[in-house]
């Protein structure tokens, strides 16, 4: 589902600045449908791993408190142009979201 994720990785000195946008509803499970008054089931990305050339650099756990269509920014020291930054994410229903970007 590459179209669900947008990534950018740019060098700032010797640090690569990574920005990730994932399309996701991020439903907490606590919100009620305005019409039916029924709870909308929880549906949110809960685990995210970022890699640099296949090596884990960031291991994250998310709750439903991350805003809809999540944005994640992080920085990695020691990366260089041409390196690959990857994202593997999964939501509470088991749907996977993967992305990769080459450092510019």
């Amino acid at each position, binding site marked *: 589902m590459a179209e669900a994720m947008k990534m950018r990785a740019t060098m700032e000195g010797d640090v690569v600045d990574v920005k990730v946008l994932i399309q996701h509803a991020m439903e*907490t499970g606590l919100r009620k449908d305005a019409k039916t008054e029924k709870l909308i089931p929880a549906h949110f990305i809960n685990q995210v791993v*970022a890699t*640099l050339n296949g090596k*884990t*650099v*960031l291991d994250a756990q998310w709750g439903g*408190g991350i805003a809809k269509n999540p944005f994640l920014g*992080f*920085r990695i*020291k020691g990366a260089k142009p041409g390196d690959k930054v990857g994202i593997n994410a999964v939501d509470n229903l088991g749907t996977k979201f993967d992305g990769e970007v080459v450092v510019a």
Partner: protein
Amino acid sequence: MNPLRRAFLKNAGVVGTVAVAIATGLLKPGAAFAAAWNSLAFTAKDPAEAINNAGYGGAAESSDIMIKAPDIAENGAVVPVSATSNIPGTTSMAFFVEKNPTPMIASFEFSNGAEPYIATRVKMAKTSVVRVTVKAGGKNYTNSREVKVTIGGCGG
């Protein structure tokens, strides 16, 4: 949460554990999440309980954790928050919105050159303290910042 498993993961080192898991076919490369999702921390309704369950209990106040967030958020559904830890040896960071129905937002573990910096966007039900906790050198530190919310982002 199984305390034995936690201890095992800590002692074995995350990299070694994951490598073994991949080798034994337990995990496919590309889906190597180091630990099970911390539901005890994420479902806690009390901020202190959430922080404790996330492993950040007894954190000392530190102004070396820099939090960037708006003073006033017009829309609580999307509040940009970023944090940088200037405490040497920072290995992890977590975000909490104390007045949310479930205060824990997210936790992040840094390794292999990742800087102790995270930018994200959080939901805020109402005006609240946004708290960031970090682990550095085996100790916990925290800093916080109030964000006023004019329209809440949780609930219908």
